[in-house]
């Protein structure tokens, strides 16, 4: 059985939108685990706080495992404190996304998020010894490495980044605010104006990346559907769906049905394209190629979109 994990929302959505998203996930999405909480920018934290209790309760009532995400980039004293409070006070499992959380959480059961550099089983083993039970491997990792780590028998559950725009980089500087003539300290949360990221094109007007506050993400949406069988055969027990501003309940259903063999990967891909139509799919990282690339397994795969 392969689990589905709904990753944290990397974008800034306003409170009500955030709440409605999760209530619907709780009621309708066939996911096993939901990772919650601000991961990208510590300044955004207050947007979700009024709705947190309600969302957690609803998700748990629906039988989902709730996990709290830690910040990806911790540089300020205030951010260190947020991590410390999260680890000291949370009665939920925590997914760690930076080294400070790895250090502080030692000895407690936890998850490792896709923003931590786990490229081999020596690293996975070390993290497992410190209490990691589940590792979502970095999206950049090719399948050859994923399957090798799985084959090495590291005592953790491995997860791969199955759906979503790929988190590619994070900076102390906010390019999103900068593009609107603001600095990070005086940003007025302009990143909230683009709930699916701010499109960045090349000078030849080719869509390339999207800005999400201090984070830079891919323009393409990683979609590992044609690869599900080899992922499962390699012993990967979990797949991550990273929320985009589209029908994520529909996305979760497609992945669930594809995993359960109820629909074939080709039709699954076709349906996925209808749910998130404006964004091209990619799977290059999985195939050890450019992350932006779409590698079709067969001719029919290429014509699927």
């Amino acid at each position: 059985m392969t689990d589905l994990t709904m990753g944290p929302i990397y974008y800034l959505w306003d409170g009500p939108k955030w709440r409605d998203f999760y209530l619907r996930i709780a009621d309708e999405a066939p996911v096993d685990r939901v990772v919650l909480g601000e991961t990208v920018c510590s300044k955004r934290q207050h947007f979700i706080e009024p709705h947190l209790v309600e969302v957690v309760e609803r998700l748990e009532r629906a039988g989902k495992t709730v996990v709290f995400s830690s910040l990806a980039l911790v540089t300020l004293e205030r951010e260190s404190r947020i991590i410390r409070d999260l680890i000291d006070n949370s009665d939920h499992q925590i997914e760690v996304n930076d080294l400070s959380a790895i250090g502080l959480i030692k000895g407690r059961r936890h998850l490792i998020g896709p923003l931590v550099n786990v490229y081999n089983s020596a690293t996975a083993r070390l993290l497992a010894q410190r209490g990691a039970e589940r590792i979502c491997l970095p999206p950049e990792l090719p399948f050859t490495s994923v399957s090798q780590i799985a084959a090495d028998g590291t005592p953790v559950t491995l997860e791969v980044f199955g759906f979503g725009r790929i988190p590619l980089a994070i900076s102390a500087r906010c390019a999103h605010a900068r593009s609107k003539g603001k600095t990070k300290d005086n940003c007025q949360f302009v990143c909230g104006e683009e709930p699916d990221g701010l499109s960045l094109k090349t000078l030849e007007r080719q869509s390339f990346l999207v800005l999400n506050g201090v984070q830079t993400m891919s323009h393409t949406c990683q979609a590992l559907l044609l690869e599900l069988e080899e992922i499962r055969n390699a012993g990967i027990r979990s797949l991550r769906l990273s929320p985009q501003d589209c029908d994520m309940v529909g996305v979760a259903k497609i992945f669930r049905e594809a995993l359960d063999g109820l629909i074939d990967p080709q039709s699954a891909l076709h349906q996925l394209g209808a749910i998130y139509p404006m964004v091209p799919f990619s799977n290059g990282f999985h195939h050890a190629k450019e992350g932006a690339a779409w590698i079709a397994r067969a001719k029919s795969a290429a014509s699927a979109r």
Partner: protein
Amino acid sequence: MELICPAGTPAAFRQAVDAGADAVYCGFRDETNARNFPGLNFSREELREAIAYGRRNDYQTFVALNTFMRAGDEEIWYRAASDAVNLGADALILADFGLMAHVRERYPEQRLHVSVQASASNPEAINFLVEAFEAKRVVLPRTLTIADIARIKRKVSCEIEIFVFGGLCVMAEGRCSLSSYATGKSPNMNGVCSPASHVRYRKEGTLMLSELGEFTINKFGPGEAAGYPTLCKGRFDIGDASGYAFEDPISLDVMGEIEALKAAGVSALKIEGRQRGKAYVAEVVSTLREALSTEPAARGPLLARLKAMSEGQRTTAGAYEKRWR
């Protein structure tokens, strides 16, 4: 404060030492380090000679093994670590936890430094690296202000090294897959950012276009100063506006803040540029050496001459100044 200098070739190594380096860092000619460029870096024999040259002159040699081990091929990194230890490297500069654990276990006496690629940007992260791997020194990412650095230093027991001159990563180091998104090759996995194999320069009328993989990442007018073809210093369109979305072509220079860095408790100042020629190494190392022993007021003109060495022929204090964010 120590001056830590780059060397991509034995010739550059000798220049660094002769120009006044306290330590020189270098890497093997393969994917075990983050400057895995054609024709660059050291064979085992060259490193042996370099370390001996350093020893005779009372300088240290650090060996960078700062990429992440490819699953299934860990032996390449383990062998590099073993060779570096046996050749007498004064410190290994590491980024991968798995490799750090291996080095700690096999070579308990070996001094271990944490590479900037490990992205340790706060006291808790550094304390983890000290506790888990007995790291003696951490190279901080270029995402922190000098005030941040001072605060961090007060809470950690190991030495702090920071970049003061040269290339400026706009993204948190070791956490950037922009290069592999466009080319399939990344600093973490392959030791290259914007690999030369995927870079093309094309003329379009009077413009010079730089292309990375299938993407155009910049256009330069005649005579307009250029930089490396990295994505974080590319020109892009956002909405109706064109420009540098992340950062201009520019290099880092925080030598104007030597007193503040000293007061912050920084142990070592690092110069970026293993990929640069020996002329760069000689010029930058000797200039910074001189600047370190000069009155603050006299430093400006001294450092100004390094602008010609810099991307876009300009320098910035980057994240070390809060306004950069």
